[in-house]
């Protein structure tokens, strides 16, 4: 047995599929809609959330026995906001370019319901190490969906991936565009993100019947 017990591994892997924060718990939808028009933005967001959630879970877990239950939500908000602001300041001072790419995400991270959700549901009742794993696992599950949605939206909406013109040039009419292919501008708008997420949910539930709720 290595560093991770079986239970610990489950903390990391469960959120990737059968307990995915987006497709099963339907948390963090707002940021998933907002920033998945590009693959790069999705990846940046996934990494940022992983950092904040991993660290935030540990901090909350360390404080779990002293937090007054009446104001625990406020305490959680303060912790996540402080963490995000510190990260933002440090990046601005030492990695200015990166901080500019992240600018819009800072606000989105603080309001991400997955973060509050994991603080409340997990970190308040578990040890720091397990909370850390849970944070990383949930952020990875969130990131996975973001990357899938970002991939399809950028590919079908702009014809590019990470900015590279993988389908040819729409203005020069090269590649696929030479035979009459057109980008679907609709994919760039937020409602299409919801539809893509819906399709992922559909595929996931049709493959695993246990996930379908009884009415």
């Amino acid at each position, binding site marked *: 047995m290595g560093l991770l017990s079986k239970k610990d591994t489950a903390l990391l892997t469960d959120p990737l599929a059968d307990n995915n924060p987006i497709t099963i718990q339907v948390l963090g939808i707002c940021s998933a809609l*907002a*920033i*998945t*028009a*590009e693959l*790069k*933005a999705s990846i940046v967001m996934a990494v940022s959330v992983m950092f904040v959630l991993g660290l935030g879970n540990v901090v909350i877990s360390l404080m779990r*026995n*002293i*937090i*007054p*239950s*009446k*104001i625990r939500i*406020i*305490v959680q908000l*303060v912790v996540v906001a*402080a963490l995000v*602001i*510190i990260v933002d*300041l*440090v990046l*601005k*001072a*030492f990695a*200015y370019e990166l901080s500019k790419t992240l*600018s*819009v995400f800072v*606000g989105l991270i603080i309001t991400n319901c997955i973060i509050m959700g994991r603080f409340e549901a997990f970190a308040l009742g578990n040890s720091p190490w397990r909370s850390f794993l849970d944070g990383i696992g949930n952020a990875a599950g969130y990131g996975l969906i973001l990357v899938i949605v970002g991939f399809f*939206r*950028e590919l079908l*909406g*702009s014809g590019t991936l990470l*900015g590279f013109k993988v389908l040819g040039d729409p*203005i020069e009419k090269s590649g696929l565009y030479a035979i009459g292919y057109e980008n679907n*501008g609709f994919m*760039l*708008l937020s409602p299409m993100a919801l539809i893509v997420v819906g399709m992922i949910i559909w595929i996931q539930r049709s493959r695993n019947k246990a996930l379908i709720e009884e009415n």
Partner: protein
Amino acid sequence: MSKKTDSNLYTIIFAVIMVVIVGSVLAFFATSLKPNIDENKRIEKQQNILYAMGVNENDEANANFVSTAIAGQEFKKYIKKQLIIQGDKVTEDENAYLIDVKKEQSLAKEGKTRKLPLFVGEKEGKTFYVAPIYGKGLWDAIWGYVSLDENMVIQGAYFDHKGETPGLGANIKQRYFMDDFIGEHLLSEDGEFKGVKVAKGNNDPKNEEKTDYEVDAIAGATITGDGVTAMIKSDLKLYVPYFQSLKN
């Protein structure tokens, strides 16, 4: 039995201590990192101005600034004069690039005469006049630098934004959008200020028409595009008297 963490006194004390600790930690970070952050912003302004006049390290598709290490010396090398235009007065000031355009705009609203910074650069024997512009996009501020020749024909443009949507409005800082402005005329033939409109249905994707006062809009970024149109119109118009005085 109630836990000790449930009592009101405990809750209040906890809240007070937490706020004090978090507040001091944040204040410590903010003040100790401020010099670095200000320095980064200062260098970025120099890079922006240089970018607009074509001093950059663009590769085939991406916009790249000159590196931060050499930005200062390149700025000295290419920017010959930094002017402040205030009413009819034109003065030189080597720190004109640090003027806060947003502040000047609000001064103008209060009825005062705003300072208009203008950077005169020279590259390969050609003179560039770089002017800052500032406006609002969909979510937050957008700004940029436009370099002009003496006839107010755009020679280069750099746009940036604080928080436009990635993949949509944020694309105003992409090469394909910024490069469209190059060669566009701001003045009509009889010298009237027209500006450049970010237009839907421009029907000119390769942007060959340079005197139509229009460039192609970005799909899904109407309001950001309108913001660019508006800031070009309102801010660059103020420089018309100066360019007229150049001719006389």
